[in-house]
């Protein structure tokens, strides 16, 4: 029990329950599951990228380029569609593009040994810049009807497709991170990169994979957004990289790497969603909400610091007084 309470996600869960309670008291319609499900779709685009970002941050890195990458993929896909490529192929190419963008980040980081902060700051500007160059102020629409409004596709007439996509991906990412060898490499690299290298882990390959994964999720997010909005513009997902990072950190993942979990990120995403929707229902403007979400992030870390201090650390074992191996020395 104590071990459960010490987990960093517990604060996220508490905040989630509190936020839900306040929202429900303020607006009873909040208890209507259909409402919550209906408004979930835009958050899931942030969500899928946050899943990969969880890997990135646990490995001690950061990817600032996710939103720009998403925009670039949206723009390129739309241009391809405009040029007559069938939408099915556009989707495949979009995924491929995500891999390429992630690979570009990853190669600069592993081959040149540059810090991921600098590299992805550069590609943040670069990817958005290319998107802007490719499309300018125009927007492209008229996608085939089967492609648009994925959020209107509902399982059992209730659960929107983006939520299902997110939950399935969260399950897969959770299994990879917590149950598979690759996940252990991610933690090891974030804990001590040279140590991981000396232990024979293929650090560069793992880092490359992590950034490719991030690129892949940009593509998934891009397709989800393009479908939901039924339109492509270069300024899609403005500043979303910060929302993505906020979700991950709010979920208890250590910004310096080595610690974190997928369940934390999932909880944090729902927390952000409920806080935002709760405020919308109270008539608080979207911009004003920024103050609350920003403060929430800082407060959650302060709370985590406090509980970390309160829960006494496990005492180190006392060294045994004598040396039990003494006997073996005699035959020397």
């Amino acid at each position, binding site marked *: 029990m104590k071990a459960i309470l010490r987990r960093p996600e517990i604060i996220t869960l508490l905040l989630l329950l509190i936020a839900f309670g306040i929202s429900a008291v303020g607006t009873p319609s909040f208890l209507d599951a259909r409402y919550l499900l209906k408004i979930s779709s835009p958050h899931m685009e942030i969500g899928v990228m946050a899943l990969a970002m969880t890997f990135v941050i646990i490995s001690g890195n950061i990817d600032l380029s996710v939103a720009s990458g998403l925009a670039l993929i949206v723009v390129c896909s739309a241009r391809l569609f405009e040029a007559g490529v069938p939408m099915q192929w556009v989707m495949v190419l979009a995924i491929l593009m995500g891999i390429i963008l992630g690979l570009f980040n990853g190669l600069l980081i592993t081959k040149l040994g540059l810090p991921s902060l600098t590299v992805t700051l550069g590609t943040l*500007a670069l990817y958005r810049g290319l998107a802007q160059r490719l499309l300018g102020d125009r927007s492209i629409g008229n996608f085939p009807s089967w492609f648009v409004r994925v959020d209107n596709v509902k399982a059992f007439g209730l659960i929107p497709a983006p939520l299902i996509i997110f939950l399935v991906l969260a399950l897969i990412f959770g299994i990879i991170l917590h149950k598979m060898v690759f996940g252990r490499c991610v933690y090891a690299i974030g804990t001590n990169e040279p140590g991981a*290298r*000396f232990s*024979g882990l293929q650090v560069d390959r793992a880092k490359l994979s992590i950034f490719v994964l991030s690129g892949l999720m940009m593509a998934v997010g891009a397709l989800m957004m393009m479908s939901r909005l039924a339109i492509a513009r270069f300024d899609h997902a403005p500043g979303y990289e910060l929302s993505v990072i906020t979700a991950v950190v709010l979920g208890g993942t250590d910004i310096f790497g080595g610690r974190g979990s997928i369940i934390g990120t999932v909880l944090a995403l729902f927390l952000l969603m409920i806080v935002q929707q709760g405020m919308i229902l109270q008539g608080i403007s979207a911009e004003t909400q920024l103050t609350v979400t*920003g403060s929430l992030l800082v407060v959650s870390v302060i709370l985590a610091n406090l509980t970390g201090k309160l829960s006494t650390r496990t005492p180190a074992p*006392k060294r045994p007084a004598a040396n039990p191996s*003494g006997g073996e020395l005699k035959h020397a």
Partner: protein
Amino acid sequence: MSDPTTNPIIICRAVGKSFAGVTVLESVDFDLRPGEVHTLMGENGAGKSTLMKILAGVHRPGSGELLLDNVPVNVPSPLAAQKLGIALIHQEPLSFPDLSVAENIFMSGGSPQKEGKSQASPSWFVNWSAMYSEAAKILESLGVKLDPKAKVRGLSIADQQMVELAAALSQKAKVLLMDEPTAALTPEEVGDLFRIVRRLRDAGTAIVFISHRLEEVFSISDRITVLRDGHCIGTRNVKETTTDEIIRMMVGRELGKFFEKPPAQIGEPRLKVENLSSEGRFADITFEVRRGEILGVAGLVGAGRTDVGQSIFGIHSQSAGKVTLDGKPLNISSPRQAIDQGIAYVPEDRAHHGLLLPMSIATNTSIAELKKVSKFGWLSRKKDRHIAEEWRDKLRTRLRDVSQPARELSGGNQQKVVLSKWLLTEPQVLILDEPTRGIDVGAKAEVHHLMGELARQGKSILMISSDLPEVLAMSDRIIVMREGRITGRFDRSEATQEKIMAAATGQHSTLEAKPGPSGPGSPATPHPVRLRKTDASSSLLRFRELGIALFVLLTFFAATLKTRSMLAPETLSNILLFTPIIIVVAMGQMMVIISRNIDLSVGSILAFASIATCGIFVTHPGFPLPLAALLATVIGAAMGAINGTLIAYLRVPAIITTLGTLSAYRGLVFIYSGGRQVDSNYIPEALIDLSNRSAIYIPWIIVFAAMIAVLTALFLRYTRTGREIYAIGSNPHAAQMRGIPINRVLLLIFTLTGALSGLAGIFYASKFTFINPSKTGVEMELITISAAVIGGTNVFGGSGTVLGVLFGCLFLGLVNQAMPVVGINPFWQKAVYGVAILAAASLDTIIQKRFGKSA
């Protein structure tokens, strides 16, 4: 020599200390006299370092009292210890690699102006020439040839220790605490160090010394106090005791002689290395290790032994030569391949290379052989635990549970975890790099026993060790390396300490650190001159700034050639007017980055200060402009102070704090303005005029920005706080130990950055003549961080110059405004920013790799 009748300078009376319920020291009595070297001995975990840290103010005693000159004192912090004249010399020197030798000597949190003696120790302002000359004087008095202006990055550990000693001397320390100062030194360097220690002792300094090497201890000490399990076992005069007695006191029983390798069946050659070379590291290395054999590799630290080991293991690349295993040529380029071939490498740096300290023992045990605990990529926690427990029992590792973090174990037990990890890979060849460094006598014997057992099983062991008795006792054959080459080969029967040292040093010298009478009468050996060439990186930095400047000019001229309108006053002023806004904010951002932090909230602060101030113009059209500027600055400072408080005092990482306030402050902008834009007709003419004209034909906001840049440069270069920012970024831990008021400095720079962002808000209103809640200041954080990165500021802190950042700002401003003029699609702009950042960062990395190999 110490005189037993002198009054002790320090007395510890019944000092006790426990951490989280575990008693580390119990009722320890200890005294230290002026003019003596008093050594603390004991196994790891006996409490030596804790006692020393209590004296140095790092820890506070849980019980008992400290007396300094017979007066009870309280030493609450390292800074307080410094003020009392107590200085701690760390095993791994705590230096600021980005600062000069002189600054490293004088960087301290104390307030020396109170004693009012040294011009070199900055009070508020730094007197560089006085600092350099005084540093040179102190270094000379130590007999160390080091350039006070050289950067500390790249100095050897021995030299860094000298710098730390010089720092202690500069503070007129009466008590020197030296925690294993010799652990990483070559015998030659130990000799140098002891010469200085003896001189200081003879001048009346009281010295506490910790070492595991008995020979050294007997050579340098006047008295020895032995601790065991937190208890003081006793204090002996060196002249009246023997090594046997001290060992008995340390382990609580008689110890036999050194464990020796038992005979083993020596078989066929297994690992063969022929003419192996690696540029700049080692050359022409040829040897073979046979089955059941331990090949000892002796030599001084830095002789290239570790490089050879790591090269075989695939950490470094080799430029020439051949490695064969059982006659099969190997081509290894990564540790993974080495492991798969049956080669294991136990590194000397356990904390950084050997273990993942915060992770569990079970994880650490299986990390090099994950396929043993997984199937098709799926981990089995049960197998993980099972294997770890199996090895715990095999090696008798003392631990509470295998799920415990490896960090919690003592050095010896940590080493056993490392060994289990490598034995799990079932290696045929083990490369052991300093296998018993920093572990206590008992664990050491166990490791030696294990090595003997492994050899008996027919494994081949390459043992790199600086511990000569260990090399002699454990090796079947010994090779000696010096300066990257093999300079001696000995069989077990013919090897002696003297022969090995002669080969290692390249001369027939005797060990300086030999037991025997010593003191002022010992012959003055000519010490080696270690004059370092001046660090090339500072001149490269200048070169880099010049490079950006040239690039900015080139871009400008290219633009001018393409279109004359580039020179039109309107264009020029546009280019020049966007830049001051960036510059003002970037100055703050640069300071934050130098301190190893980041401020993402600058744009939101700019917007809020701007809209709050200009909101006043709407309601009070006659509001005086200087007052408005002041108001914006104060608002910005207040917001920055909130950031600073959260970061410095509530320990929220800067990136998270300012990510939060980036949103929070932007939200405030909307709350305050109700989402409405402040239009140009509300901005007073006088404010708009600041961007249009001035008495000297240059718009005022450019003049102001230039002044702020100059002030920032002066602040960073000539004030004590300015230098402290570099120190904190260069090595936060060292900054803390030196008593630099880190929290205050951080609060100050975040407040300053806020103030500058606020002021930039006024400039923004002047240039753009409107404030829009959703546009103003957006992406300012990215622009300023980019300016800093392009300008050469290290994103990991410690270095950066105003000049570089200024050019970075100019470049961004130029791209921003010039592209439309020369007919390049403005949509390219962001892409160009991105490429510039990547190019600048790549260039820096390449330069660093080429020239400044950091330690």
